[in-house]
C-alpha cells in the first residue's frame, strides 16, 4: 500500500435551514480512488469547488469521510486514535500565508509544531535550525512574519511543517495568493524537499505550469477524478483540458495549435526547449 490511499472516498456537505433540516447536499468528493507511493511528487489539478481542497483536508484528518476509507501511512484516518499520528506523518501547507502563522517571530512559529508533539527543547532547536535552512529562511529567523513577502511567509509555513518531520506534505493551493516570484519560490522549495529529503509531495493547484515537473497528475472536477497520468500524458490531451476550462500553458497550447495546422510536432510538449527542438526538426 502507498503512503496515501483512498478507496471510494465520499464527502458530503449538508446545508441546513434554520430548523436544522437538511436543505441541500453537496457532494464534494465522489468515490475518489487514489494511490500515492512514498517519495512521489503528485499534483492534483482542478477548479475552485472541484473538491481538491476537501481531499487535502481528509489526508490531514481535518474532515471525516461520509463513506469510503482513507489510509495515511497505513493508518485508517477514521480511527480516533490515529488522528495525531496521521497529522504527524502528513503535514499541510494552506493557501493563505497569514492565516497559518501562529507566532510573531519566525523561529517561534517553526517551533510550534514540534512543541505540540512533545519534542525535547534541544531537539526543537535542531529541528528549527534545519527546517529554516531547508527553505532558505535562516537569516529571517528573528523577524516578524508581518514584514515578509508572501513567498517568504509561505516558506516559513513550509518550515513549520518540515520541523515536524512528516513523511508527506500536502500543499493546498500554496501559491494562489502569491505573485509570480513568490510562486516560483514555493514550488522550487516543494521540489527540493521531494528530491533531497525524499518527502512525498501532494501539490494541489489550479496553475497548470506548476504541475509540469510532477511525477503524476490527477485532474478533478465536481468531486471526481476525471483524468490521471504523467504530465506528458495529461498535456497531450489539450482539447479535453480546454473543454474542462483548465489553463493550458502557452507553450503546450501553441504546440497543439501548430500540430493541428499540420506541423509534425509530438503531442504533450511541456517546455519551451522541447518546442524549439521540435520546430527546428521539421524545418
Amino acid at each position, binding site marked *: 500500500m502507498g503512503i496515501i490511499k483512498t478507496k471510494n472516498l465520499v464527502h458530503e456537505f449538508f446545508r441546513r435551514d434554520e430548523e436544522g433540516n437538511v436543505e441541500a447536499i453537496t457532494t464534494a468528493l465522489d468515490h475518489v480512488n487514489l494511490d500515492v507511493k512514498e517519495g512521489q511528487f503528485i499534483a492534483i489539478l482542478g477548479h475552485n469547488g472541484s473538491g481538491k481542497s476537501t481531499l487535502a483536508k481528509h489526508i490531514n484528518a481535518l474532515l471525516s469521510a461520509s463513506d469510503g476509507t482513507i489510509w495515511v501511512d497505513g493508518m485508517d484516518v477514521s480511527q480516533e486514535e490515529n488522528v495525531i499520528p496521521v497529522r504527524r506523518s502528513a503535514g*499541510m501547507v494552506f493557501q493563505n500565508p497569514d492565516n497559518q502563522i*501562529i*507566532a*510573531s517571530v519566525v*523561529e517561534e512559529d517553526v517551533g*510550534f509544531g514540534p512543541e505540540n508533539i512533545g519534542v525535547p527543547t534541544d531537539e526543537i532547536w535542531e529541528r528549527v535550525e534545519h527546517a529554516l535552512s531547508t527553505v532558505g529562511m535562516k537569516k529571517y529567523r528573528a523577524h516578524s512574519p508581518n514584514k515578509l513577502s508572501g513567498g517568504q511567509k509561505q516558506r516559513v509555513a513550509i518550515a513549520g511543517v518540515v520541523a515536524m518531520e512528516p513523511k508527506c506534505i500536502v500543499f493546498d493551493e500554496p501559491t494562489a495568493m502569491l505573485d509570480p516570484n513568490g510562486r516560483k519560490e514555493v514550488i522550487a522549495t516543494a521540489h527540493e524537499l521531494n528530491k533531497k529529503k525524499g518527502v512525498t509531495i501532494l501539490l494541489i493547484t489550479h496553475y497548470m505550469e506548476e504541475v509540469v515537473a510532477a511525477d503524476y497528475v490527477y485532474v478533478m472536477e465536481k468531486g471526481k477524478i476525471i483524468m490521471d497520468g504523467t504530465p506528458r500524458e495529461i498535456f497531450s490531451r489539450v482539447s479535453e483540458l480546454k473543454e474542462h476550462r483548465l489553463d493550458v500553458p502557452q507553450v503546450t497550447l501553441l504546440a497543439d495549435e501548430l500540430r493541428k495546422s499540420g506541423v509534425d510536432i509530438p503531442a504533450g510538449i511541456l517546455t519551451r526547449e522541447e518546442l524549439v527542438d521540435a520546430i527546428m526538426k521539421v524545418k
Partner: protein
Amino acid sequence: MIRDITIGQYYPANSIVHKLDPRVKLFATLLYIIALFVYKGLAGFILITGFLILAVKMSKVPLKFILKGLKAIVVLLVITASFNLLLTPGEVTFFKWGVFQVSDTGIRTAVMMMIRLIYLIIGTSLMTLTTTPNQLTDGLEKSLSPLNRINVPVHAIAMMMSIALRFIPILIEETDKIMKAQMARGADFDHGNIIQKAKAMVPILVPLFVSAFRRADDLAMAMEARCYNGGTGRTKMKPLKYTASDRVAYLVIIGFLAAVILLRIFVPYFG
C-alpha cells in the same frame, strides 16, 4: 494613517533588556507602575526619570520609535490634562469661567498627571517593545500557573493573547484597506453627527468581522494540522530559565521601588 500606530509593537534588537526573562520584566513593570504612583517631589521624579532613561538606553530601542508610539494617545493625554487643569480648585485661582477655572493646584496636578501617564506608557511599552508576544504570554502563563489549581485555563488564555497580538497588525492593515475601498465607493467617515458617523462604520465593521471569523477558522485548522491539542504534553522551544542577570534585575527593581518609597517618606517636599 492607522498603520502608523507603533505603540507596543515588538522591536527586535540584541540588548540586555531583550534577553531578560519575561517574568522579570512583568514584575519590573508592575513595580515601576507602583513607583509612579507612590513617588512625590523632585527627588523621586529624578530617580524615576533616571531609571527610565537607563532602561531605554539599555534596551537599544531608539527613543524616536518610542516617542512615535505616544502620538497615538496624544488626544487622551490632552483630554486628561485639560480636565485636571480646568476643573481642579486650588488656593490661587488665575482664571475662572463658569465651572472652569485654572488654579495653582490644577496646574500642578495636570503636569503631574501628564508626567505619570507619559512615563506609564513609555515604561509599559518598553516591556512590549523588548519582549516578543510569545515570551510575554509564556511569562504570564508561568507567573499565573498557580491559578490552574482553581481551574483557570491559564494556557488557553495565554494562547489566545498571543494569537490576538499576532493578528492585531494584520487586522489594522485590513481596516485601512476596507476604509479605502469604501471611500472609493463614496463613503464619508469625516462628516455628519455622531449617529451618522456611527452608521458610517457599518460598512467597515461588517467586512472586518467577516474577515476576522474567516481568519479564525483558517487558523484553528492550521493549528490542528500541526497537532495542537491544548496545553497538555507540550514542550517548550524557549523554556523560561532564570539567569544571573535576571536575579540582578530583580534586586535592582526591588531596590528602585524601595528607594522611591524611602524618598517619599524622608524627603517628600524637596523641590
